């Protein structure tokens, strides 16, 4: 449907109206349908926002995947060079771009987590990530409870977290399980099998089943969550997706010539792995899920469920909150400040010296 289709001129409308719910029956066109167009026009004018976070060990192809997803150089992929020292603690790196397609403007923010799982001791490596996610919720909450609010609160909350599972072929590692357990409660998580070109089809299927088994055993509820299926159509659609999660993906940002067509792919001595070919990898499924069909749903669940959960916790335990001004002032803090041991809340505790003012 062309989003710019205008509603037809006044007297010529002859839209059929279906029999409506009793007791009222509309006896002719009223024009209520036009509200859909109005909605579209307004939405397109305002633009959309989408924030995605990619988590995984270095070398799993996260940056390449993001470039492939959005068909642009979101950031230059950094090959893990020998000269680059591994960061001592987890750093979060965020870029924002505005992309436009057919009149639809999308403000895309991608957050990368270099250094995740790279240390020798990875204890509590999820804390900075949780801290970041909660920080975004906090920002939104602060804006929402102001007396004089902005017309449109900028949404920096993480809508989706893509977790890259290394293709070991066995099952989920303890780090994966710990991380997924914690994160599923706070944000929508979509696990994917990274670098799936190192697994054959049978190995992939076996690996997938084992991962699904692991997820079930540890009660990890990844996106699309069963409990949010609204109607039977959703259920059917989402069950099909759930069956294929985690998707086995391959990322590539170079184009090659295959059968006269130019496709994105990875060239190896034994063949070219086409990224968009369903027979080779499941990248199209991931792309469809994230962008073409479930983007709005991801945002809605983040807003209606995860953000509300955060808000409830925050408002109930406000006596733990730091007082005083400048809380949202994100002066660069040392990594140690955010690695507080509580998974679901952001606790500044004794680190915040502005507490003394109250």
């Amino acid at each position, binding site marked *: 449907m062309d*989003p710019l289709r205008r509603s037809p001129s006044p007297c010529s409308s002859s839209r059929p*109206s279906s029999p409506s719910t009793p007791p009222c029956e509309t006896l002719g066109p009223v024009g*209520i349908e*036009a509200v*859909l167009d109005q909605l579209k026009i307004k939405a397109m004018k305002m633009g959309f926002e989408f924030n995605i976070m990619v988590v995984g060990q270095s070398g799993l192809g996260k940056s390449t995947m993001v470039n492939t997803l959005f068909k*642009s150089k979101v950031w230059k992929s950094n090959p893990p060079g020998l000269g680059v020292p591994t960061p001592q603690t987890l750093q979060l790196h965020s870029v924002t771009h505005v992309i436009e397609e057919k009149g639809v403007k999308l403000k895309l923010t991608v957050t990368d987590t270099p250094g995740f799982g790279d240390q020798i001791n990875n204890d509590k490596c999820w804390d900075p990530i949780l801290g970041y996610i909660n920080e975004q919720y906090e920002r939104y909450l602060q804006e929402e409870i102001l007396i004089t609010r902005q017309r449109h609160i900028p949404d920096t909350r993480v809508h989706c977290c893509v977790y890259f599972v290394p293709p070991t072929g066995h099952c989920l590692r303890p780090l994966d399980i710990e991380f997924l357990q914690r994160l599923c409660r706070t944000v929508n998580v979509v696990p994917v099998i990274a670098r799936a070109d190192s697994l054959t089809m049978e190995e992939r299927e076996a690996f997938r089943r084992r991962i699904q088994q692991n997820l079930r055993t540890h009660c990890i509820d990844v996106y699309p969550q069963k409990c949010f299926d609204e109607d039977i159509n959703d259920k059917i659609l989402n069950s099909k997706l759930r069956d294929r999660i985690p998707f086995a993906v391959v990322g590539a940002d170079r184009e090659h010539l295959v059968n006269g067509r130019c496709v994105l792919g990875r060239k190896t001595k034994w063949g070219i792995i086409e990224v968009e070919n369903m027979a080779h990898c499941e990248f199209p499924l991931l*792309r469809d899920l994230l962008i073409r069909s479930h983007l709005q749903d991801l945002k*809605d669940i983040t807003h209606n469920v995860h953000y509300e959960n955060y*808000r409830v916790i925050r408002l109930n335990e406000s006596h733990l909150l730091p007082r005083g001004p400048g809380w949202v002032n994100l002066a660069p803090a040392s990594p140690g400040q955010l690695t507080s041991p509580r998974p679901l809340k952001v606790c500044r505790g004794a680190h915040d010296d502005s507490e003394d003012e109250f």
Partner: protein
Amino acid sequence: MFENEELRNLSLSGHVGFDSLPDQLVNKSTSQGFCFNILCVGETGIGKSTLMDTLFNTKFESDPATHNEPGVRLKARSYELQESNVRLKLTIVDTVGFGDQINKDDSYKPIVEYIDAQFEAYLQEELKIKRSLFNYHDTRIHACLYFIAPTGHSLKSLDLVTMKKLDSKVNIIPIIAKADTIAKNELHKFKSKIMSELVSNGVQIYQFPTDEETVAEINATMSVHLPFAVVGSTEEVKIGNKMAKARQYPWGVVQVENENHCDFVKLREMLIRVNMEDLREQTHTRHYELYRRCKLEEMGFKDTDPDSKPFSLQETYEAKRNEFLGELQKKEEEMRQMFVMRVKEKEAELKEAEKELHEKFDLLKRTHQEEKKKVEDKKKELEEEVNNFQKKKAAAQLLQSQAQQSGAQQTKKDKDKKK
């Protein structure tokens, strides 16, 4: 800890697919359904219900109101309409009794109170800790149709006062009702008179948005015709070879959907087909925010404290909550003390009663004892008498037996003598 690069436009080298986003959004909204609430303000009998029936092409059940209402009250009714796949929850609020009283000073008050009550309900839901805003049934008024009586001269003072009170709370769309009673040339003068009066009195009516190219043109042309002169009718009259909504008079037929006859089509276009979403948005982002700001400031919340440093609503939340809890505790204490006092009083009462009972008991005991003593005395007396009597009896018997004996002796002696 996290770096942010500058916002820049990125060029895409292929089709990504997020152009389906508006469709995704629309699908979500469609499955949820839409809400639209209209408030009709106007005198009794001016044609509010008929116009609603005509606008939405259906017969909403209602009985015409009487003119005897003691005050203005608001009657709200909800209906579910569906057109193809769009579900609309329509609420129509009527002002019953508006303009009927002799003293109309307070006529606007129930209306303002109703509007504020809807804002309040939404605000309460929004401030709750556990809230569910996404399936909240929004009852805030999105559009207020103000029905102006077709006098042909100017606005009544009641109209001006009411509209002035409502303009900061709701989107007002003024319309001239029963416009078939005004001739065309008079209508033009009437309209300009009304608009100039509104402007000179500073009444802010709803401005059709002109900032988007798609709707700017149509909105601009329509605004010129404000206030819309409408005629409502649910009866159909045969015109030419088809049926149309119209009013039949001996001198002719007034067709509702004929733009030469009245502005009904313009109203429907503006209200529903072009600006329904904008009306809802204005209500939420302008009128509701204004109400919220005033209400929160009234309650004592501020965004910045006296030192003009921003501090959070949450702390005042906390402070208020503590205050409230303190009050609660105080009340609890009071109640407890009162309870204790009452208990003491009751105890005292009961003790007194007990004492009385004891006294009574003692008294009774004493009387009982006295009676007993009396009875015993009597008994003794009786016994003494009995004893005396016995003695006397014994003595008498003795005498008798003695007398008998001596008598017997006497006879015996006599006998001996005779021998």
